[in-house]
């Protein structure tokens, strides 16, 4: 028995594939979990996040009532240092100096304030975070085997492949899609891909990746991949890798060489690696 749910959320398409015996409403529960994250974290329509941004832009502290938004803020606060400060939802090319360092999250009081006017844009983090919520919901519903994808840049697998063993995944080379950058075997893991290349990266209206330290945009042709137990962390790490300079990238990769990859497709850019060579 298996089940598939396909829908639009977080500005992209989401697919949930469940295998094995599943409760009849497991798919619906997982979908609702993802839509709830979308509703809480979106900045494209009124949400808990736009309300929070209105306060922070006006220089006010803000009581975070939405439990999903609070959980997201706590995760980012906890992982900010792990990303060397390179994942920064408050960074803004139009507002130099705005950044997570200016933010204080009071977890116990569920309050957030900022030392200067700024606004949060969770970007890819939301997709990984949403897949985490969906996995939690599926686990609670007794699902043991599942493959979840948000926009092909965020993947989460639960348990084992229905035919046994891990889930074999090959990340296509954005410049030569018949070839792979890397092949991986995943079990209870989340994978995030951040790339300045590929069809999706050229989509109109696509927000560029911003370096938090100087607010500049990443223009080098790069693809970063990160694997973690939690999708939210995988997202933060792949974003960090994409915007990292050579030294920072080395440090991030050295911490988990089998789980973090950076591919540089441009000879002219300050290359961390030789073209097409895996850093791991």
């Amino acid at each position: 028995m298996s089940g598939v749910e396909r829908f639009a959320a977080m500005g992209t398409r989401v697919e949930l594939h469940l295998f094995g015996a599943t409760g009849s409403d497991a798919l619906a529960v997982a979908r609702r979990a993802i839509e709830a994250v979308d509703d809480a974290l979106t900045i494209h329509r009124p949400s808990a996040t736009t309300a929070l941004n209105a306060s922070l832009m006006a220089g006010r502290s803000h009581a975070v009532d939405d439990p999903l938004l609070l959980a997201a803020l706590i995760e980012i606060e906890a992982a900010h240092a792990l990303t060397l400060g390179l994942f920064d939802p408050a960074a803004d090319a139009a507002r130099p100096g705005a950044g997570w360092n200016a933010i204080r999250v009071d977890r116990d009081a569920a309050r957030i304030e900022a030392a200067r006017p700024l606004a949060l844009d969770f970007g890819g983090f939301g997709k990984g975070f949403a897949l985490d919520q969906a996995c939690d919901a599926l686990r609670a519903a007794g699902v043991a085997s599942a493959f979840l994808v948000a926009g092909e840049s965020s993947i989460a697998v639960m348990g084992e492949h229905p035919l046994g063993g891990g889930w074999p995944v090959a990340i296509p080379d954005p410049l030569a899609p018949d070839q792979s950058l890397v092949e991986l075997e995943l079990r209870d893991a989340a994978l995030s891909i951040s790339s300045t290349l590929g069809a999706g990266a050229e989509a109109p209206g696509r927000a560029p990746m911003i370096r938090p330290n100087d607010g500049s945009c990443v223009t080098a042709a790069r693809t970063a991949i990160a694997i973690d137990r939690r999708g939210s962390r995988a997202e933060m790490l792949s974003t960090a890798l994409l915007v990292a300079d050579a030294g920072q990238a080395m440090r991030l990769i050295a911490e988990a060489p089998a789980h973090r990859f950076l591919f540089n497709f441009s000879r002219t850019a300050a290359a961390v690696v030789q073209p097409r060579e895996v850093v791991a």
Partner: protein
Amino acid sequence: MTDKDFDFTRRAFLDGVLKATAGAGVAAAAPWAVSAASAAPLSGDRVRLGVIGTGDRGRTLIRNILKTRNCAVAAVCDNFAPHLAKAQAIVGANVPAFADHRAMLDARGLDAVVIATPLDFHAPLAFDAFGAGLHVWCEKAMARTIADCSAMVKRSQDSAKVLQIGHQRMFHPTYLNALKRVKAGEIGPVTQIRASWHRNTSWRRPIPPGSTDRKINWRLYREASAGLMTELATHQLQVGNWFLDAVPTRVIGSGSICFWKDGREVYDHVALVYEYSDGRKFVYTSHLNNARYGCEEQIQGSKGTIEPELGRIYQEVPPKVLALQRMQEDVKRGHKRTVPIGGATWFPELPVTTPGDSLGWGEYDETMLQFEGFGEAVRAGKPLPGMLAQAYAASVASLLGEQAMDRGEAVTWPTDLIAV
């Protein structure tokens, strides 16, 4: 159809309307339909209607009036004898027939008139009917000018007589169902309605002996009509205002006589954008030389689209991820293969073609229901709630569109309209 069969389909239709309007948001957004469909048992004397203008539409209206449980055709009137004779053949020889509406009004014995003449006669005929102390049911559009539309509203208010305009979509179960699903948030907030009425026809009718081109083809001449705007767009502008729950703030447009250069005076090609609050839009095209896209209102929200003329609702479901489809097939046949997946986030770009789901069809009698509602309104001396405001706004919008095209500039919504 036997009387029993008819009763059954009538009941099923009314139940359909009531079911569609059952939601809280819908009852408030279509109060006229609730009133009309729940009016029961419609016993007592029938409301006596005198039908003025028994051309194509007038005769359709007569057939619908005859189906109602509370209205009767008590007189017919047309100043073109062959059309009057056709009406008489439907209603029978004992219903009095008049060549002149004044004679019909003077003969008395009516509660209301039904006007289905060319557009430029709507207002003067309505004024005469109010003057004679009668209620008025008039086909859309209301009048040839915005001033006359306003004057009709004013006269109805001053004389405390009902004025109802023929907008059958307001009673159509598919539209009511569509509205219900919009109110339930199924397609997200509606930000744009793209509507069209495309036909491939000259719109010219043959001129029978004893008549003239201007009398038969009144739609093609400016004195009598604003062409596509008042004859077709009014219906869809009503739908637009209704589903966007507002009137436009302004309109820009371009009109031309592009294909049928046959001496007509009205545009055979129109394209307009009606702007609404919060940046919402109603984008409209109508022409007479390509029928591929026909008549439709595409009601577009962030989660889906409704096409009421087709009776379908579409969710914004993105196309399948091919690698995952293959994975499913592999697993089914016990084959484990690497899944090639991962890259920059996928963004939707291309139009999504899905069959969509049905909004529900049935045998509809919405024109009949308009008259049952009107009959009850006449009996109560009170109009069906909300109807006239919708019709007034739709007619004003159609005429404002004509102005925008004639002047070649944006025209803002008038500030001197009568409060309904």
